[in-house]
């Protein structure tokens, strides 16, 4: 009998980056460094995910900066803040994949608009003309960053479909509320459901995006399936996950984290290296997946590197007070 002893460098087939993703130049070095260790433990649980319409997505060349190296898929989908499924970074990957269903999924678009509707997530993606892929920087308020290839559609398209009335000045995004099936919502860690908002002109900005996928695949549950807001010039907590309602309103809403700790988190949450968090500096950030075991830190860019595109939105606004 032949007993095959796999060498330390051997990776299982499942660790291979699909050819399509290979061309994104993900941090292969990172995986190679950890390769020996990874071989033993890649029995990842089956990931559930949301909307499946719109794939394969079209790569949008305008949003593929060759200088940005996407963070490996395994890291993006393993290190999540999604308190509905637990407050630990690893909790959502486990708890959001225990039979919690994100397909079918209905989202309600309502408020001060001419075309209120309730629509299935897949149908919405189809109405939006399918999914495109954009590679964006992602900056968490906790001073770490990733580079994520999101699939989805521009939020402006959805706003055009909704057709807001002139009184509509803000857009709110409500996450599901399902304490029966979702463990974290049975605790009082946050006020449920999670709630976020944007000014209408922010929401209409060409960078604002609704993600339905990551790396050309349906977005996994732990990352906010099936519909997640993506606003790359803002801190990650603005990216409302698993949205069930998009409401157009006249008054500036209070978002969940602003309600919880108003001296730490504000409505705008624009990435700003000059305005510190009360407990830590925002001047630099850990680059997830880079720099080997000790990791790497880089300077944080104003508006997360999107200053050229979004700064005009905030002309005349005191960013120190409106954090």
């Amino acid at each position, binding site marked *: 009998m032949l007993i095959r002893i796999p060498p330390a460098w051997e990776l299982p087939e499942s660790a291979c980056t699909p050819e399509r993703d290979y061309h994104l130049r993900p941090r292969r070095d990172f995986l190679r460094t950890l390769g020996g260790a990874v071989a*033993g433990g890649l029995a990842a649980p089956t990931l559930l995910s949301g909307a499946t319409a719109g794939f394969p997505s079209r790569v949008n060349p305008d949003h593929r900066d060759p200088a940005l190296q996407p963070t490996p898929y395994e*890291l993006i989908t*393993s290190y999540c803040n999604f308190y509905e499924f637990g*407050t*630990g970074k690893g909790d959502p990957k486990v708890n959001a994949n225990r039979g919690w269903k994100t397909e079918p999924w209905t989202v309600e678009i309502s408020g001060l608009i001419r075309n209120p509707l309730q629509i299935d997530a897949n149908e919405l993606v189809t109405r939006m003309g399918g999914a495109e892929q954009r590679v964006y920087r992602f900056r968490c308020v906790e001073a770490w960053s990733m580079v994520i290839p999101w699939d989805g559609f521009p939020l402006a398209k959805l706003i055009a479909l909704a057709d807001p009335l002139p009184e509509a000045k803000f857009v709110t995004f409500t996450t599901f509320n399902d304490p029966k099936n979702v463990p974290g919502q049975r605790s009082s860690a946050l006020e449920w459901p999670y709630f976020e908002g944007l000014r209408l002109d922010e929401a209409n900005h060409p960078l604002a995006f609704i993600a339905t996928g990551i790396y050309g695949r349906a977005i996994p549950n732990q990352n906010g399936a099936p519909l997640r807001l993506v606003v790359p010039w803002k801190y990650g907590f603005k990216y409302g996950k698993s949205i069930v309602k998009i409401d157009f309103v006249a008054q500036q809403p209070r978002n969940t984290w602003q309600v919880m700790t108003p001296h730490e988190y504000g409505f705008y949450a624009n990435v700003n290296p000059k305005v510190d968090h009360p407990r*830590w*500096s925002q*001047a630099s950030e*850990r680059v997830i997946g880079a720099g080997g075991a000790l990791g790497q*830190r880089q300077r944080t860019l104003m508006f997360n590197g999107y200053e050229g595109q979004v700064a005009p939105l905030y002309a005349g606004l005191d960013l120190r007070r409106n954090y």
Partner: protein
Amino acid sequence: MQLLARILRHSATAWSLVILPGLWPAWPIFVVPDFTVLTDPLKYILLYWGLVACVLLAVALTFSPLRVLWPGAAVPLALNRHRRLVGVAACAYALLHLAAHTRHVYDGSFDTFLSEVGKPFQLKGLAALGLLLVLSVTSLHWAVRRLGARRWKALHRLAYVAAALAAWHQIEARKVFPPQVLLIFAPVVVLQAARWWRERGSRAPAA
């Protein structure tokens, strides 16, 4: 119980019990890789060492009340032999935690470190570490002899202040209250309260 006490008396046991927990991060990093940990291994290590420092400090503070509450019992007596070792180990882990943190925020310069270190959250941790350093240095035999038992004892009551600061620092480290703080420090509070109650009874005049 006698057997347990005999095992606990050994300094080899005590050394193993303070060193082994610190090596745990090797498991999710090298043995059974956990992608959540691998996302930022240094962050995991630094948080973990901070946690071990808190646990050891809390554990060290349970030894005396156990001895008072169960006078003459073998296990508390065995544990009390190692009180200083456990306390100094808590200090060592706090130092490792600070070293790992310093590396974690190193951005090619110490700008990030320096701009953060004055924030109340970090100052509490630093103050706790400062106290533990003073207590560690004065835990040497010559310091005990020089200070005299009474003064040494008074000085080393600062361990409770360090524990309170460490608990506060740990709470502030999270956006949402971390229940493990209660698991770690509540036993100390309960045991100290019981000890205070017991000693208060025994000190009361018999008249």
